[in-house]
C-alpha cells in the first residue's frame, strides 16, 4: 500500500459535495462501511462530514477525497490487499 497520490486511481466524481459522494456510494456500492472522519487509509486521514462512507467493489476501494480548493472527489483505487483488509475488519 502506498500514498494515494502515487497510486493508480480513477476519479468517479469530481468537484462534488460530501452529500453527493455519500449518496453515490449508497446508491452504487452495496458493500459500504461508515468510518469516522480522520480514518487513515492509503496514508491519508479521510476528511468528511459524518456519516462518512467508503465502499468496496470487487478488488477496488472507493473513498471520498477532499481538497480545500477543489471540493470532494470520489475515487476508485484498485487494491486487492486493502479491499480484503477492509472486508475483514469492517471499519468504524
Amino acid at each position, binding site marked *: 500500500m502506498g500514498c494515494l497520490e502515487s497510486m493508480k486511481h480513477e476519479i468517479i466524481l469530481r468537484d462534488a*459535495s*460530501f452529500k453527493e459522494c455519500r449518496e453515490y456510494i449508497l446508491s452504487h456500492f452495496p458493500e459500504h462501511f461508515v468510518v*469516522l*472522519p*480522520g480514518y*487513515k487509509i492509503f496514508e*491519508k*486521514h*479521510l*476528511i*468528511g*462530514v*459524518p456519516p462518512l462512507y467508503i465502499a468496496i467493489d470487487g478488488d477496488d476501494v472507493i473513498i471520498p477525497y*477532499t*481538497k*480545500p*480548493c*477543489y*471540493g*470532494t472527489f470520489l475515487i476508485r483505487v484498485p487494491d486487492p490487499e486493502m479491499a480484503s483488509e477492509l472486508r475483514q475488519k469492517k471499519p468504524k
Partner: protein
Amino acid sequence: MPDTKTGPRDALLLLGCPQVPIQTSVALYLASKLRKQGITTVITGNRAARTNIEVADPDRHYIGEVIDIDRCIAQLAEKKRDFHFCFSFIHNDAGLSYAATVNAISPAAQILIIFGEHYQEVAGSVEFPAEIIAVNAVHNPMPLKAKIDEVFPWVVSNL
C-alpha cells in the same frame, strides 16, 4: 468527542481555499485579537492559504506557527496535538468537510466563520454543534470584522 483540553489556551485557525479575498485579512485580524488575549494561535491551510498569510505578515507580528493542513489533521487524528478553540474559515463545501472532521477528532470548541456569496447555504448545511458566525462578505472584510468583534468577548470567555 474527546475530553476538553487543559493548560494554556491555544487556538487553531483552519483556513479554507484562499479564493475569497477577505480570508487572509480576517485571519490575521483574528490572530491579533487572540494574541492580545494571551491565546496562542496555530494557522493551518493548504500551501496557497498559508503563503497568503505568511506574505501578509512577513515579520510575524500577528501569526505564530503555520502548518500544512494534512499534517495538522494527522496530528489531531493521532491525538498528538489538540487545541482549546478551532476557528474554521468556511466558504464552500470542502471547508465545511474539514471543520466537521476537526469536530469529530478534537475536543476544541468549534467556531465556524462562514462567509462568501453562498454563506446561507453553507451555514444551513452545518450538522454538528458549533458557534456560527455567518456573514455575506466576499471583498469587504468589515461586515465579518464587525461580527467577530461582537461575539469575540463571549467566545473567549465562555467556550
